[in-house]
């Protein structure tokens, strides 16, 4: 399942390219400006993505030290 590692590209797209398109104050989410909310959401999504990659990574079974 090495292809699942490609998911790791998504945070780069979201945080490097995303700001060009979501650089706006409204709509506010949980009171935060949209840009800030976008970044916070992607930090949480990134952690989830890394957890998925970890779960399916054969390397974690090989050297479970």
């Amino acid at each position, binding site marked *: 399942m090495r292809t699942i*590692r490609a998911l*790791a590209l998504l*945070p*780069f797209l979201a*945080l*490097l*390219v995303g*700001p*060009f398109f979501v*650089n*706006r*104050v409204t709509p*506010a989410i*949980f*009171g*935060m*400006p*949209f*840009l*800030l909310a976008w*970044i*916070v959401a*992607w*930090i*949480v999504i*990134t*952690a989830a*993505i*890394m*957890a998925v*990659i*970890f779960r399916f*990574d054969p*390397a*974690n079974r090989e*050297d*479970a*030290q």
Partner: protein
Amino acid sequence: MNGALIGIAAAALLALGLGFLARRGRNIGLEQWTVAGRSFGAPLVFLLMAGEIYTTFTFLGGSGFAYGKGGPAYYILCYGTLAYVLSYFMLPPIWRYARDNRLYSQSDFFVRKYDSPTLGVVVSLVGIVALIPYLVLQFKGLGIIVQTAGYGAISSTLAVWIGAAVATAYVMVSGVRGSAWTAVAKDTMILVVVVFLGLYFPLRYYGGLGPMFAAIEAAKPGFTVLPAHGENAWWFSSTVLLTALGFYMWPHTFGSIYTARGTRVIRQNAIVLPIYQLILLFVFLAGFAAILQVPGLSGVDVDLALFKLSTKSFDPWVVGVIGAAGVLTALVPGSMILTTAATLIAQNLYRAVDRSASDERVLRIAKLSVPVIALVAVYFTLAGGQTIVALLLMGYSFVTQLFPSLVLSLGGGKWVAREGAIAGIVVGVATVAAVSLTHTTVATLVPSLPAGIKELNVGIVALAVNFVTLSVVSVGASLLVPMQRPLADVSGASSRAWPRRRTDRFWPES
């Protein structure tokens, strides 16, 4: 002695106590002192890596950045997150190579990979030049925190001396273990304090996050997003990318990888660290809350925003708790920097000259270097001056120059010659210095670019120059002497008589 001072003094004593306790029952040799015998599980590695993120810069500078500049401050949230994603793939091979070759420092990695103690000296010098201003920044922050939170009862000069003495003492005794143990206290306190402040200030002064951001938007339209000019989306994106690449190139962060017990520990941390990054959100919220409550701070004073608002809002004892957290955020990274810089001096500068030195001797020299480095940093902290500020601004760009030759040595990158690695780093660092000192920007270099793109971080230029130099010199070296020399050491076997370790255990402690 007021309530605030008691809290601050308790923090200093706690750090000292934990720092000494960390060595209890252990005979600390070179491998224990520098990389804790490669024995740390996920929690301690996490704390060491978190030690790099939450320094006084984050505490004071993060809130000050949000207060003074608004939206562009968000870049601090982003680069760590991307660095952790990279870490999942990049750090395990580094850790394995370090274990198999019994490496102690970041420079050791370059020495072995490229079979070149000279490259080790170059990398160490870059590291030390970047680390000392970073240590100065911690001491400066400590002085500001103690002076402000202590309502002026202790001068910042005295605070800097005491802080430097405390960190020096426990680093000499316990090495990196001291940093890890004090980090337990630091991260617990900072978590509680920052989350509290980030929620409390907006609630108390505005009635919630929504009303707070609405009030800021009404007073300063567009302040909480990226501006169209200056620090715009191009600046943001290029800065996030550069700092994400440079993140693990800091010698003390790189060194913290070695303390891990295994690669699984490192991968686990790549999941948790992004979430922990969200602490910064609360730092920003506190900084935003200060905008309309303690207006008028400018220049270097923006860094006081968080403490000005705190002293305005709370009883002295609460300010003392905040100050205590602040003191620990200075001491923990400060102690990691001390350990790392001392290791570089002993292991990579001294040992490059005295090849037959024993581990005991190298450790003794490392320990003796600690007070010397601390004194140099105290001197620059108290003397102030433009030099150190200039170095500080360049530090991150300096260490980022190590990225190309590091990452190219990881895979099957046999084509990078040691001459190429050295030339790339030297030219990259020189470019950073030239560009920073002459205030060159992408706009002055390429005036024909469209307006927005001109705001690209100029560090991209240095990295590109570095990479081109590395490539040209490597290809040139392989053409000149095609047969004689091995290029980057991919196998892990080194042919040079670099000191062999006396023991052959792979897992000295588990």
